């Protein structure tokens, strides 16, 4: 009991601290033209009450994280149930049959989507899918390759500009520009050069549904490629490089080459999507590709779960769709986003869906057969 009181007292102190801390900015509003001051006392109350409750929850979550959760009545029981629930979902997803059905269902829903929804919703979904591809592309660089990359939007921009310029000056059409844009983005990323910045106005009519299906195809292609790469010799190099790069290079892997491969392959998706973006919006300028764009893509990857394909997928969809459907809160979007990033890193640094690497394993039968063959070669079979 005393302990609980103690907790409450500390939360009260936190609340007082935040009231003091936010006082000038939250309460005082100066009109510099008329030279008058508005004192917004309600804000102080909101901060006080809000920070008190957040502090209680935060402290509780902290204790849970530290693994020393003392049962605080109903909160802990709810927490336990949620925890058990997530584990069960994870186990169910591991069953191949369930997986196949789930993927099939998702695919069917994705195909039906533009026919069941209005243009407006389809457009939003196109944007979301764009970020899925961008997220998966960046994921190759940071999640698999283990490199931090702040300038990812530049690759996206290079793709878009390549398309715009090719279309303008050489009349090269969309389909031809797609691979060229991708290739260019990949190539340029290796040079890490500054893109040539021109503002260009152009016209190109594409129906929304058409673009939607292109995006869907690109998403599927991305997932396919990332999946294949992960389970290949290159994927193995990436994992090893992240676990111990010194041992990795001592085993004959060129770290520079492995990193450049990740950078190049990751950048291709940025370029690819850039081309589609330019074709779709028919107007681009440098302002479309800012550092914040990169930061948002980075956040989708980290929030969703670095290195995890479904994680990045979910992360991008949530981050892009939520704000669109929470228009009334549009003003608070970035505020909530920022707070979410911090909270997520503090309590769940591995993101929504934690990466689970598929380790290469062999069955007992395979093992026996190989070893038997080996022994026969040596002529030492003792059976």
């Amino acid at each position, binding site marked *: 009991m005393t302990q609980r009181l103690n907790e409450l007292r500390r939360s009260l102190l936190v609340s007082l601290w935040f009231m*003091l*801390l936010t006082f*000038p*900015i939250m309460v005082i509003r100066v009109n510099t033209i008329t030279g008058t001051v508005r004192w917004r006392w309600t804000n102080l109350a909101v901060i006080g009450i809000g920070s008190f409750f957040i502090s209680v929850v935060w402290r509780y979550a902290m204790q849970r994280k530290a693994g020393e959760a003392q049962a605080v009545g109903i909160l802990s029981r709810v927490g336990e149930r949620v925890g058990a629930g997530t584990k069960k979902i994870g186990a169910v997803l591991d069953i191949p049959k369930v997986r196949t059905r789930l993927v099939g269902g998702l695919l069917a829903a994705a195909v039906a989507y533009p026919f069941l929804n209005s243009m407006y919703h389809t457009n939003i979904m196109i944007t979301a899918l764009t970020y899925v591809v961008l997220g998966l592309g960046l994921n190759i660089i940071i999640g698999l390759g283990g490199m931090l990359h702040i300038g990812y939007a530049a690759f996206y921009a290079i793709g878009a500009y390549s398309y715009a310029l090719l279309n303008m000056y050489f009349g090269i059409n969309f389909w031809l520009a797609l691979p060229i844009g991708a290739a260019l983005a990949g190539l340029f990323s290796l040079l890490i050069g500054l893109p040539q910045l021109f503002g260009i106005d152009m016209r190109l009519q594409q129906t929304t549904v058409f673009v939607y299906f292109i995006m869907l195809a690109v998403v599927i292609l991305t997932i396919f490629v990332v999946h294949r790469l992960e389970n290949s010799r290159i994927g193995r190099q990436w994992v090893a490089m992240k676990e111990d790069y010194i041992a990795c290079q001592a085993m004959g892997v060129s770290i520079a080459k492995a990193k450049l491969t990740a950078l190049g392959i990751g950048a291709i998706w940025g370029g690819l999507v850039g081309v589609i973006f330019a074709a779709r919006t028919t107007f681009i300028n440098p302002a479309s590709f800012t550092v914040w764009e990169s930061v948002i893509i980075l956040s989708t990857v980290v929030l969703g779960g*670095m290195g995890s394909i479904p994680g990045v997928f979910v992360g991008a969809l949530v981050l892009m769709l939520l704000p669109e459907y929470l228009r009334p809160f549009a003003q608070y979007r970035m505020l909530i986003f*920022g707070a979410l990033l911090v909270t997520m890193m503090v309590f769940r640094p591995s993101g929504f869906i934690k990466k689970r690497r598929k380790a290469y394993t062999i069955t007992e039968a395979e093992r026996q057969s190989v070893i038997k063959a080996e022994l026969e070669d040596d002529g030492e079979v003792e059976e």
Partner: protein
Amino acid sequence: MNYFTEVVLSGLTRGSIYALIALGYTMVYGIIELINFAHGEIYMIGAFTALILASVLTIFGFNTIAILFLAGIIAIVYSSMYGYTMEKVAYKPIRNSQRLSALISAIGMSMFLQNYVRIAQTSDFLPFPRIIPRFPWLSALPVSMSSSQFMIFSSTAVVMVLLTLLIKFTKIGKSMRAASQDKIMAKLLGVNVNKVISLTFIIGSATAALGGILISSYTGQINFYIGFLAGIKAFVAAVLGGIGSIPGAVLGSFVLGLTESFGAGYISSDYEDVFAFIILAVILIVKPAGILGKGQIEKV
């Protein structure tokens, strides 16, 4: 006054401000190897708090000197409080996680603070009051320096000297150096590492806030976004000088400030940021650890 001196003065002004911000970056990096992405927001909050307080005090009819000191000091204290709280909330709980987590947390913090000020105050530019009084004796100098510039140079110089003394000769300074070299060993020898880290954030935030107030009264306007670009520039300066090194941050800041000023003054002001990044690229290619940075050899 000739054009050349003007360009040099303007470069030194920029350099001083970058140095005040870069100090926080480099000190925090030196001690917990975190690129504190939200450091620029502390600078912005310092400027905003000073603006709010100065306006309120003006309305209450205080005189200029009182406003300068009250608003300046309270704003610096407040920024330090923000820095301290930021570390406790966003970085301390994940000190042992991977470095990327801390960076994302810092990015989140930066977005949060920017939008917090935008929503609680305004997204428009606000005119910043001239809180620095005119010093008539400045006109007696051979080079004509504005009083803001004089304040910027002298404050920067004072801060640098104080900080050097603090780090070289006090017990706190020794603890800081010890903790930045080996946190576990420092802890074993009785250094309160948590306190040292908090203090680093407090000092870094205070100098950044000072920079924010000075530059705002020099340029005369602020908005919620000023911290972002200044933060990036100061970060570039810190990397240029060798991140983790305090003299490096100061040197890097002046190199950056002068490069920008000369680039803008003699070539074209449209490309001033491009010059900053070209010089960064050149120096990092020649000396990857920065001008005063030490390359590390990994023990195998």
